[in-house]
């Protein structure tokens, strides 16, 4: 147990390191910050609600930077794409937060926002899940026909629409091999940033699908590039939260210690899998987060009387982190086994690289 002088509580170091590790693994693999899992976990550990967000945001900036270094080595970052999006993302987040404040003044309740975030996350889950299954089946069919299956398979036609928009200036993203209007990138940055700021849903899990399905980047590049965005927006968020007095650095540092190992593992794990595997994990995180939000919504709608709902929400939050981490570890284990000719479940070969 450690005394967190700034937060004014005593909490076990192990739990913070553990959360840092699991969320670091997930974040390094699917390119999210993981705030929707960490913030509730910190509150449950005893940190005051207003500090949980600040501690989380600050640790995300550090953890994302650890992941970014590794993704850079793996060639998963398109710097042109990343830097073009940054300004749009920051603008979007600022707009989102201001509109949220305005809506709150108008008396729009937290319930409406919770419902909206459930709808957005569920919609993203559906699209990602359906497309990824189609891609998975296509990879399996190609393998059966003896054709070589590449690192990425993506079946959405949306990128072609967006890449054909001819607005000047056009940027050439050499790593991602995309030629697209700068305005498309900036607009996607603004919209994803807005959703993050307004609904408080993680920027990562809107931005990675947007980069894959709208801009047309490969999943690995979307993950690496998105992590760069997270460093920038996380760093800015960390500054704002610190000024407000919402950050306890000792909590941040313990989590980053766990994230050191987790982020390494998650980032390196991307080298073992194909794009659809990453998109599956992303879709699972979306559906579990949606379920968590639905539980919280039910708890609020039933007048906060059914404590069992609150308990289930806690279990789901912690369980979700562990689940995603275990699934990623499984994929790596299966990939290594498959490479050495050992038996793996039948759905694995199309998802991993041999």
């Amino acid at each position, binding site marked *: 147990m450690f005394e967190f002088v700034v937060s004014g509580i005593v909490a*076990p170091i192990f*739990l913070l390191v553990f959360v840092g590790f699991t969320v670091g693994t997930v974040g390094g693999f699917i390119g999210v910050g993981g705030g929707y899992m960490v913030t509730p976990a910190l509150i*449950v*550990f*005893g940190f005051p609600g207003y500090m949980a967000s600040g501690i989380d945001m600050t640790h995300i900036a550090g953890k994302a930077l650890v992941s970014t270094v590794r993704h850079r080595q793996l060639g998963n970052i398109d710097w042109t794409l990343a830097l073009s999006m940054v300004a749009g993302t920051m603008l979007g987040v600022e707009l989102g937060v201001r509109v949220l404040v305005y809506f709150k003044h108008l008396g729009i309740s937290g319930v409406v926002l919770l419902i909206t975030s459930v709808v957005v996350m569920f919609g993203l889950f559906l699209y990602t899940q359906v497309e990824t299954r189609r891609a998975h089946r296509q990879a399996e069919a190609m393998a059966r026909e003896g054709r070589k299956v590449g690192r990425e398979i993506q079946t959405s036609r949306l990128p072609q629409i967006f890449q054909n928009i001819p607005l000047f200036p056009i940027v050439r993203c050499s790593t991602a091999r995309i030629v697209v209007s700068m305005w498309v990138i900036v607009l996607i940055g603004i919209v994803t940033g807005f959703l993050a700021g307004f609904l408080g849903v993680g920027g990562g899990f809107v931005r990675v699908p947007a980069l894959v399905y709208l801009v047309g980047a490969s999943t690995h590049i979307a993950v690496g590039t998105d992590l760069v965005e997270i460093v920038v927006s996380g760093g800015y968020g960390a500054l704002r939260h610190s000024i407000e007095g919402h950050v306890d650095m000792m909590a941040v540092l313990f989590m980053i210690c766990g994230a050191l190992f987790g982020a390494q593992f998650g980032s390196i794990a991307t080298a073992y899998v194909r794009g659809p595997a990453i998109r599956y994990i992303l879709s*699972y995180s979306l559906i579990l987060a949606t379920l968590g939000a639905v539980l919280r919504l039910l708890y609020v709608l039933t007048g906060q009387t059914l404590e069992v709902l*609150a*308990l289930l929400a*806690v*279990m*789901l*939050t*912690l*369980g*979700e982190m*562990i*689940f995603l981490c*275990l*699934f990623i570890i*499984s994929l790596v284990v299966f990939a290594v086994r498959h490479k050495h000719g050992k038996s793996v*479940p*039948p*759905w694995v070969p199309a998802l991993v690289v041999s």
Partner: protein
Amino acid sequence: MSPKPLRWFFDSMLGYWVLLLAVSLGAAAAIYEIWLKGNM
């Protein structure tokens, strides 16, 4: 005892998903019991 029901947890992606979720929720329950009960 037929091994078929158990095989579903590995042979089917959904089955594996269910298996891992059960393990994870169990671990979450254990963490809650050991460390967090007092806080809530």
